[in-house]
């Protein structure tokens, strides 16, 4: 889960998508890489990584010891803590920083069908390491006039990379009352490569996640937002397992 921009609904999508994926029979590992630890908070897991980010990305670091079960079957989490704010610095100290996250995930490859990485925004060493680990980049995109430009920037950046992940953008936080957003979302779906058909609406139920500390599907499963996340997972599964 990645976006150059912040505040586009990345963590909300990561949490809900992880939940919907696990409900559909996938074994999911959600790795919270954002030092704010919002995904960790939503799953009521303590924001604590023993040894911190430095030990994790160090030579002897391993992910398995940091995995925590959530309250949802088939969904595990690697929590974030504040030490992740220096993750770029620690990655920079490793031999092949852009391959380090993939190296940490590799031993768990047989245990999970899906690893969802919730990345902090921006193009940083951490995001480059995520690009090295990911098969697909899910990019939440608020339909504005600048969105296409941001997607182009990302495509340009990835264009030079060998084994670049597939970019799967989707419309996020769409206010259906705004005609401009609706038309831009439709235009992006028609023109942007890999754009997923499902639109995630801007909805007040998303804000309740902080109160309920759970994915929307748990406390409001029949709402439009919950169903949209379910459909979004269907889109992703269709692309990756068709």
């Amino acid at each position, binding site marked *: 889960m990645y976006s150059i921009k912040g505040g586009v609904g990345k963590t909300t999508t990561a949490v809900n998508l992880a939940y919907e994926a696990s*409900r559909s*029979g996938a*074994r999911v590992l959600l790795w919270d890489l954002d030092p704010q630890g919002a995904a960790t908070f939503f799953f009521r897991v303590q924001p604590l990584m023993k040894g911190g980010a430095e030990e994790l990305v160090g030579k002897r670091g391993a992910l398995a010891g*940091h995995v*925590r*079960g959530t309250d949802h*079957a088939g969904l*595990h989490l690697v929590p974030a803590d504040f030490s992740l704010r220096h993750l770029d610095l620690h990655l920079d100290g490793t031999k092949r920083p852009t391959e380090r996250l993939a190296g940490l995930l590799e031993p768990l490859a047989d245990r999970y069908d899906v690893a969802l990485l919730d990345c902090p925004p921006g193009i940083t060493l951490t995001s480059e390491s995520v690009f090295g680990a990911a098969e697909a980049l899910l990019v939440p995109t608020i339909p504005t006039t600048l969105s296409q430009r941001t997607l182009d920037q990302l495509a340009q950046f990835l264009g030079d990379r060998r084994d670049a992940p597939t970019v799967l953008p989707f419309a996020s936080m769409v206010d259906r009352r705004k005609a401009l957003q609706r038309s831009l979302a439709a235009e992006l779906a028609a023109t942007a490569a890999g754009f997923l058909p499902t639109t995630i609406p801007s909805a007040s139920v998303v804000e309740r996640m902080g109160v309920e500390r759970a994915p929307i599907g748990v406390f409001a499963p029949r709402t439009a937002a919950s169903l949209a996340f379910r459909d979004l997972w269907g889109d992703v599964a269709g692309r990756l*397992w*068709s």
Partner: protein
Amino acid sequence: MRSADATVAPAMGQDVTTFASPSTDLETVISALEARGFRFDGHEQESRTVLDTFDGRLAAEDLRLERRDGGQRELVLGGPGVVAAHVPADAGVRFARDLPPGPFRARLASTIEVRALAPQLTVVGRLRRGEWRDGTGKVLATVALRDGLRTDPSADDLPGATLEIEHVVGYDKRARQTVAVIEDAGWHRVDGDTIGLAAAAAGVDLHGFTSSPTVPLDARAPAIDGVRAVLANLAESIEANWQGTVEDVDPEFLHDWRVAVRRTRSVLGESKHVLPTAVGQEARERFRTLGRATGPARDLDVYIIEWPTYTAGLDAGVREALGPALDLLRRHRDEAQRNLVELLRAARADGWLARWRSWLDGPVTDPDQGRDQHRPLGDHVAARIRASHRRLVDHGRQIRPDSPAEALHDLRKDAKRLRYMLDCFGSLLPDHRRDRFVKRLKALQSNLGEHQDAEVHVHHLRLVSHELHEHGAASGTLVAIGQLAEQLDRRRHATRVEFAEQFGAFDSKATRRALRDMLDGIDG
């Protein structure tokens, strides 16, 4: 309930600790757990059914698929050390393809392939769940308390109760604390889990039926004893796969049934002087008829199974246009299946197979003894494997680039005969030496198999095209069939060209050395 040292099936889920109690007093342990911080739900009625293929493919991979009919209906795929995956399942699921696309279906399909799932055991009973949560409401450990357990199909009641701790990853300390509470309450730990205990108590083997041709053999024993042991094992496989073949449960029943018949034919053919003449002769004739009857249905099964691979390289439009061809193949296949079932039912009604089984299981009292009946089994098997290898090499050397396709088909049968001897008498041969030889033979078999499949399927496609044309099929369909036939023909041609190289690699000093090493020591 079984004791802790009993051998039971592995537990479901990655970390489950199971306890059993002969008593039905659950309140003591519930009170102790509540004092620790657990909160319990009320009772619910639960039914769990273990699903697997007839040959236990999931169990062989240490996986277990459960259909749970409790509060909500779901399928759960788990196993020891495996993160359990859950998927809602309102409708019945027989094949992997019945599930929606996604990782669950992909995992299941990669293990069971085309096989059907069938219930192996159902355990019903009362369930009470308890959860231990922290101040934020996060679950730290869960327990499942079950009593009033009954199994189906045996309908046995299981006395007492079970209690499973479902560990939450990363909260090991809480699991250990829970274990201590339960042990203090007088419950004893057992291996496996409730399903495993129920299966053991009901005498249900969750590993399914294995159509393995290998039986323990003694190289010094009289040849007739070894040959009869092998044939009896194959007869068991024929019997086990009979019903599934007749009912057309999945294509593997017919495959396994056909292979068991073919192995039987090979062993009979290579043991002409071991078995009493009259018995051997009748068996050879009967099994020849049965074996031949399976050909059309199996060929079409392979065609339909391989269809997605065959058509993968074609455009989506062409694939769509091929729909009527696939439908017709399916109709041909159903017709071949009906003919096969008719023959199988007639064969069973005639009672010969039952007599054959009795002959294999009883003492040999036939007056006309085979010439090699008392020869040491190792001598006999080594001589027949050498002869079979020689025949394969002689026939292969006669094949030229312009030899007819039938010559390759016959060679394929020679290779199969040799392979079946190695499979059926495998326990006489040292594993690693046998594997070395089989690896070389397999490469040749793979080439011959691909060639034969393409040959048969191109031929069948022409028949399909002709039939569809006669029934006024759309020209798009006929053109698409032409494209597919071309593709298959290219494949057939490529395997034909590769044959010389593959056979050359097999007809080599290295293979002869591998054969010598493999047989060294078994022929006294």
